[in-house]
Structures are given as C-alpha cells and as structure tokens.
C-alpha cells in the first residue's frame, strides 16, 4: 500500500459534519486501524472468542449473546470503578477537552474529541443504566448498543493512546484514558482486540517479554552489549542474568535489548551502573518492564506485572530499579503496589552509592533509573563530559505516562543539562504535563496503522519542527520505549534531520568511566565532532 504523503495528510478539515452526532458509524479505511488479534494469541491467553476476522469484515463473528455480555460487563465495571461511573455521569460537554487530543488535532474527526470519544460509551450507559435514558432515548442522548456502535467503539477506542492529556484541561478531571481502558475491557469480552497488543502480551506471558526473546537469547544480547562497551571504552562491565543475592533487580522494557535506537540506551544503563559499582542483576523471567496487558485489561496488566515482584522475591534482592519506559512507569508507579504488593520481602530503596533514601518509593520499592542517576549526578558521583554530545542540539519529549501519571519531569532534564551543552525546550504548551503524545502509544504502533499514527503524532512533530527551525535541534531525547520506536519514523515523515535517543544514551556518551581508553566514537559508532 502506498503511504499517503505529508502534504495530503495536512489537508485537515476541522469543520464538523452537518448531520448531527452520532452520524454514520466508523469507516475502516486502510491505514487508519490495526489488525485484529490473532486467534492463537487469544487462545494462549484464554481470552474470549478467538477466531479469524478483520475489522473491515461485515460479520465480526460475535458470540450470539454479545450484547448481554457487554451490558453485563458494563454493569460490573460500574460497580468496580468509581472513575468510570463518575465520568459517565458528570461531563457537562463544556468542550474544554475537545482540541486537546492529538488525534483530533491530526484528523479533524469530531469523534476524536475526548468528549465525544467518551460519549460513544456514555450514550450506551444512558440507555441501559439511567432512568432518563431508558425513558427518553435519543432525547436524553441515549442510544441502543448495536453492532455498528460496537464497531465505532473498536475504531475510536483503538484510536486513543490513553495519554491523559484531555484530563489536564477538564474542570472535573474526567480522564478519557480511564474510559478507554474500560471500553477496551468491554471489547475484549467479545473478542475484539488488536494483534499489535495481544501478540506481545502472549509473548510476555510465555517468555517473560513482549518480543518473545527466550532466556538464552536474552543472555546473548547482554553479552553482546558488554563486548561492544569493551570495544568502545576498553572496560568490561558486568551484566548478570538471574543472579541470586544481588542487591538490586534491574528491569527495562525489552525493546531496549533489541530495538534501535533503544539499544544505545541499554549501553548507557550498563555504563552508569558499572561506574556506580551497583550490585544488580537482570532477570530473563522478568525481562519486560513494559506491560501491554494494560492495554487489554486490568487483569492482564496484573498477570504480567506479577512477575517483577515474584522474581525480586526469588532472587532475594532488596529493591527494583526500572529503565526508561512510559507506560511501564504508569504501571510501576500507580498500579504495581496495589496489583501485586505489598512487597514486604523488599526494603525501602537506598542508593548504595550516595546513601540517598528514595522515600517516595519506600512502599513499592521501585525506583526509576532517572531518579537514580539524577541522584548520582546531583551528588557529583559521575564524571560527565558534555562536550562529547556537542554534535547534538537536544530537545526533550516528555512521555505522557511519566509526565501525567507520575510527575517525573525534572529528573531527566537534570540529566540532559549535565550530559549535553545544547539543550532547548519545545514550546510550553507541548511539554511537561501538557506534553503531546507520539501518536503510537497504548498499543497502536503497528505498521498497518500508519496514517493514524502520523496524524496523531503531527502536533508533537510540529513542535519539534519549531525548535529545529529556531535552534537547529537535531536530536530528540526521551525516556519511553514506544517513543523510541515510533518517533524516528514520525520525525522523518514530518520534520527530517532529527534523531531520537534515550536520556541514558546521552549520559553514556558523556560518562567518563574510570580507566577507560580514549573513545573513538559515540555509542552509535559515529565520530564525535
């Protein structure tokens, strides 16, 4: 399929349709939706209704009583999630959130306004669960649950990256990401999910990571990374796997072991942890920090996440250190302790180098690598030569989850300022808690979803273009595995000449390891300027 050109995609029509909402159902146009979950993955995970189907099919092969299943599922969730119930009830349709969603900004499709995305579900909620909706139907904004409505749910709830930007602006804090999470659970009850999510989940359940890397392969990759660092610096770092008795278990998103440019971030971690003389181990069983289970259901999120604490207990470590990843940290920060805690076999994290007690993590016993390294830098424990990054003019993209689901804003910036001489912020409305999504989060990064991803990422790319034009920015730093996978393509498409790197890659470049030989190149094998 020929990919649409940027000048075609910028023809965005923001004028709403003449026909009143809800209008015609979803149009499954190639390039704007993801492939259906393959039956083998659903079977492996024990998810309902495994079958061969694709979203454009007229017949979705739903179970006969699909409507009852969905309504019953809704009833259960209205009893389990106050957020869901409340967000169904109190939206006043003030429209403040409308143009805050990157998918609306990139498509102009009114159903991508967060308020109308939620209204897809809310209209059904009114029809079956409120007196007014039952009695008055359309007049009260209620509608029947039909196959077309279900298809619309599928299209638009797999066109929301659960980025929570809309919630920042909502006067009631309505978080459409919460609504999307529930909607996806409902869709999953009748087997409507996408393969770019369920395949990694099935892999992760079996092998311990999304990519399906088996333990011996995992060890090979780490050995290879160790060799590469030795070649570059003359220093042989240690990277043990499944070693009992280590002080710390280190968990990173698995893309860091195989993806590019993620891999350079891995090199950066290894170098920092070596230089700080940290006694840590990787685990091949818990070799995934990311958690695509989150994009299916709370239950699957819990299942995959459980491996981290289980492995920390088996190996007898004191606490957990986590790598650079967005949604991984939404889970580790806001869910893990509740889902699989309390980890009473662990200890409140203390930096073995500086003695800093990470009291903000004293119960969950999980520390973000940026917190850890920022603490090292703040205590002057790392020697950094920022000039080694002088070929880069750097900007920083806040990952949605670490920004709005955690508040990890200054730690990575502290590292970037220490590791680079030229650092420039993007416009204020596009960073920190207002950061714009890459457009590929929450499991929407499949190649087949190309057009939607490029559209969704357009606002982010446009902000990058601004700093490129103003300051010659040629590198975007980030702390998210999905960003590292999706932004290179996005920036090539819309901007050109801007590379993507993890924060720890830049730290690794700048880090002077004790006893190292003069480096010929940076971590990418390219000459320093």
């Amino acid at each position, binding site marked *: 399929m020929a990919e649409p050109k940027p000048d075609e995609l910028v023809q965005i029509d923001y004028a709403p349709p003449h026909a009143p909402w809800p209008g015609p159902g979803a149009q499954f146009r190639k390039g704007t939706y993801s492939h259906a979950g393959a039956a083998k993955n659903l079977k492996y995970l024990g998810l309902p209704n495994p079958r061969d189907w694709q979203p454009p099919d007229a017949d979705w092969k739903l179970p006969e009583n699909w409507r009852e299943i969905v309504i019953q599922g809704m009833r259960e969730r209205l009893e389990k999630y106050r957020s869901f119930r409340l967000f169904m*009830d109190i939206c006043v349709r003030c429209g403040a959130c409308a143009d805050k969603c990157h998918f609306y900004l990139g498509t102009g499709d009114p159903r991508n306004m967060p308020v109308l995305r939620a209204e897809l579900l809310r209209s059904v909620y009114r029809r079956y669960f409120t007196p007014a909706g039952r009695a008055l139907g359309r007049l009260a904004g209620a509608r029947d649950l039909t196959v077309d409505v279900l298809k619309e749910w599928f299209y638009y709830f797999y066109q929301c990256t659960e980025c929570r930007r809309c919630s920042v602006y909502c006067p009631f804090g309505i978080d459409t990401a919460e609504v999307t999470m529930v909607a996806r659970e409902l869709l999953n009850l009748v087997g409507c999910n996408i393969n770019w999510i369920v395949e990694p989940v099935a892999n992760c359940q079996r092998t311990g990571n999304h990519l399906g890397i088996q333990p011996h392969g995992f060890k090979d990759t780490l050995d290879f990374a160790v060799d590469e660092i030795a070649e570059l610096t003359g220093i042989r770092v240690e990277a043990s796997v499944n070693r009992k008795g280590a002080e710390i278990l280190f968990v990173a998103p698995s893309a860091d072991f195989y993806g590019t440019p993620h891999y350079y971030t891995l090199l950066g971690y290894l170098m920092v942890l070596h230089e700080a003389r940290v006694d840590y181990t990787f685990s091949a069983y818990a070799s995934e920090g990311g958690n695509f289970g989150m994009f299916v259901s709370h239950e699957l999120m819990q299942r995959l996440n459980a491996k981290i604490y289980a492995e920390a207990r088996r190996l007898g470590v004191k606490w957990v250190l986590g790598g650079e990843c967005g949604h991984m940290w939404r889970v*580790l920060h*806001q869910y893990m302790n509740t889902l699989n805690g309390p980890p009473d076999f662990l200890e409140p994290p203390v930096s073995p180098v500086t003695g800093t007690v990470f009291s903000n993590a004293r119960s969950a016993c999980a520390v973000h690598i940026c917190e850890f390294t920022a603490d090292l830098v703040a205590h002057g424990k790392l020697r950094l030569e920022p000039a080694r990054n002088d070929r880069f003019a750097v900007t920083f993209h806040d990952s949605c989850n670490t920004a709005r689901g955690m508040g990890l804003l200054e730690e990575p910036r502290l590292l970037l300022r220490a590791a680079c001489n030229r650092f420039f912020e993007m416009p204020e409305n596009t960073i920190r808690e207002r950061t714009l999504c890459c457009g590929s989060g929450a499991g929407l990064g499949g190649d087949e979803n190309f057009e939607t991803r490029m559209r969704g990422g357009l*606002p982010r790319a*446009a902000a990058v273009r601004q700093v490129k034009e103003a300051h010659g920015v040629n590198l975007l730093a980030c702390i998210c595995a999905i960003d590292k996978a999706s932004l290179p393509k996005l920036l090539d498409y819309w901007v050109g000449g801007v590379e993507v790197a993890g924060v720890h890659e830049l730290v690794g470049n700048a880090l002077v390891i004790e006893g190292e030989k003069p480096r010929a190149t940076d971590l990418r094998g390219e000459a320093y300027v």
Partner: protein
Amino acid sequence: MVTAAIAYLAFAIFVAGTVWRVVAWARVPVPFPIALTCGQQKSLDGIRAAWLENPWTPAGAACRTALEALLFRSLFRNSRAQFLPGPRFIYRPALSLWAGALLFHVCLFWVWIGHLRFFVDPALLGPANRFVDAGLLAGLAFLFLRRVLDPRLRYLTLLSDYLPLALLATVASSGILMRWWFHTDAAAVKRFALGLATFHPIAPVGVGLLFYVHLFAASALVATIPFTKLAHIAGVFFSPTRNLPNRSRARRHVNPWLAPAQVHTYAEWEDEFRDRMRVAGLPLERQ
C-alpha cells in the same frame, strides 16, 4: 396549596436524588490510585516538587480539589489550538470559558444565598444587587451563545444540554423581572417561604404570575440536578484524578475487589526453557 406541594415535591426529589446519587458514587470503590499529575513529583531533595499540582499528601490533594471547585483551576489552563501551514500548531490561551463560567457560577451562588432573606429573619446575607443580576444573565447568555455559535460546540452539544440552560434562563429572568420591574409583594413571598420552612405551608397571596413561573421553573431545575449533568456540582469532589494524592509508591493503595494474579510462574517458565538455559550457562532452580 398546590404551589407549596410542588415546592415540597421538588425539594424532596432533590434531597432524595442527591443522596441516591452521592451514595451511588461513594459506594463504588476507587480501585487504583490514578492521580493525574500536573507538576513535578516529590522525589529527590534537590528537586522542587509541586505540592498543589502534584500533591503527595491528602491535604495537598484537598487543596487541589478545592481550587478546582472554587476557581476552576483546570479551565484556567485552557487554550485554543490553531493549525497553520508549516505544518505548525499554535496554542493561544483561551480564558473566555473560564471567565464566563466563573461569572455565571459566582453570580448564581450570590443570588442563591440572597434568597435566604426569604427564610431567615432578619435578612442577613447577600443583598440583591443589579450588577450580580446582570452578571448572571450575561454568564447565562455566554454559556448559551457559545453552544450555538461555535460550530464545534454546536456539534458536541446534546439536546439535553439546553434543558438546564432553558430552566436557568426562565428562573433568572422571572426573578429579575420581579425584583426590578414588576414588583412583587416581598412580604407575601416571605410569609409563603417561612410557611414552607416551618412546615406550616400557606397559599401565597397577592403574588403575580411571574412568581409562579419563577417558583415552578426553580422547582423543576432543583429536581433535575441529581439526574442530569448538573450532578457535576457534587461530582467534582469525587474525581479520583484530582482528589487523590500521588504517593502510590510511598504508600500502598488497597483495592477491595482484587483477586491474586494468575501468574505464569517461574517454575513453569524454567520447565519450558531449562535445556536451553543450561546450555547458555544460566543458573537453574532445578537441574
């Protein structure tokens, strides 16, 4: 007597409905600590944390919620995106909704307090004020006009969004007409109101048609609050993205309905990969 009955009925529906609504929300658990963070977290000593935008104590979260309810903090962030060739977006601050909504709510609150003068003796609070009345009408007009004039808003507005506006407009305009132009016998209204309040209802005497319009529309408005989006008045205090402190790693949030995970255990995993792990020299639990 019918008048009093309607007022009582509306009030009863309001009270019962509000209790039902609030109980319905309150008895549903908050399973996860999903605070939405709008500022720096509390982490390292050298980094300044945002106690209000990213609170880590319940007191901080209460302040955040209060700011939301009283001053519409989040609306104050509002911006309007504009797409320009380049491609480029600019985000202009858009404070009209914040200002208009605040004007409307403050004036409404003032007028509502002012009505206490019909119930208590002597009248203590909230003298009627023509600026407040004008502000109320202006606020209402703003909230209505933006829905009809802005195409995007017109599209996302439901029919049911106009109902509260219509009721409010009826209540406000009839009240203002009575206050400033077609004077109604305030003493008679007060006798009626005190009768209601003391459960010795009497029929209002010597009040005009406007009074009935005012009272019936207000009754309808009050009675619908718990069952429509007007429930946002109470809902704002319940919003878990705003009223929870962001301290989930420092203190465990308990989920009452959670069952233990169906984990794929280490033992099962090692069983599948044992041979290859042995060859790769990885430690094993069982040989």
